[in-house]
């Protein structure tokens, strides 16, 4: 009887140990490549490269010299034409944050967030006090639109695979359609299964 109890106890212990999940917190700047797919490191490297390229390019000084004010940028659509699901917002937000914190580039809201802002403004026209009500038609017009694309090339044979991602961001003058800056980042990986 005693031996059965001991066996039961140890088997329960083994079962518990097998079911336990271990979670370890890591630094977002760490580079844990697990599956070889697009990960946080790729996003961070892209953001860093795009920030340094965009804020260090000639388009910024050219615009300031020509217009005497800092350029205002709106974020357009990023097209992911790669073989993986990649959300560009992760590095686009880093870039936008760098624009604002550098105080060299202005940023205006677009897309659904802008719709929400306008809806709120419309709501204020009937519900807010006159002194606090925000008026229509006073938004900042963007000078440039930020658009981009993500492409990938996959070469695989048996257990070996190379993946190359190419991320391009473009800044285009909205009035003249002139592309003033193209940011480029290439990431290559060799995966062996």
């Amino acid at each position: 009887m005693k031996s059965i109890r001991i066996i039961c106890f140890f088997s329960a212990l083994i079962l518990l140990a097998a079911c336990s999940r271990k979670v370890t917190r890591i630094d977002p700047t760490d580079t844990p490549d697990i599956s070889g797919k697009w990960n946080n490191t790729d996003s961070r490297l892209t953001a860093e490269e795009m920030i340094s390229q965009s804020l260090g390019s000639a388009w910024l000084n050219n615009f300031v010299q020509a217009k005497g004010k800092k350029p205002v940028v709106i974020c357009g659509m990023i097209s992911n034409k790669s073989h993986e699901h990649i959300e560009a917002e992760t590095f686009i937000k880093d870039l936008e944050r760098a624009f604002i914190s550098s105080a060299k580039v202005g940023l205006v809201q677009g897309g659904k967030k802008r719709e929400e802002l306008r809806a709120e403004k419309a709501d204020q026209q009937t519900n807010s006090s006159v002194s606090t009500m925000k008026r229509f038609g006073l938004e900042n017009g963007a000078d440039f639109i930020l658009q981009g694309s993500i492409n990938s090339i996959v070469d695989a044979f048996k257990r070996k695979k190379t993946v190359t991602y190419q991320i391009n961001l473009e800044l285009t003058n909205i009035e003249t359609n002139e592309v003033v800056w193209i940011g480029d980042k290439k990431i290559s990986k060799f995966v062996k299964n």
Partner: protein
Amino acid sequence: MKRILLFSISVFSCVISQAQEQLAPDQNPNYKVSMAKYQTGQEKILEGMGTTSQNTYKAYDWFEAKQQRKQDRLDFRRKLTLARVNSNRFTDYYRWRRRNVFFYR
């Protein structure tokens, strides 16, 4: 007096409207054709602003394809087993399974 006032108002409004219509240097005089075209459907175009459109493709990976083939084979066998169990020929599944265990593992 009233006529003079009306005349002056109409002249003033004409001047203002003409000033608004004035083209910028080198601006295309037919710009309104394009403007009208894009002012009607702009909301749909601007819907995807600030988002990522996912136009992904499926890349061939030998290793993944091999794993997929294995999974497909297992799924097929499972479906086959279930189909045989559900058919009228086999009433006692466990007996049938014992008999066929070597063939459908």
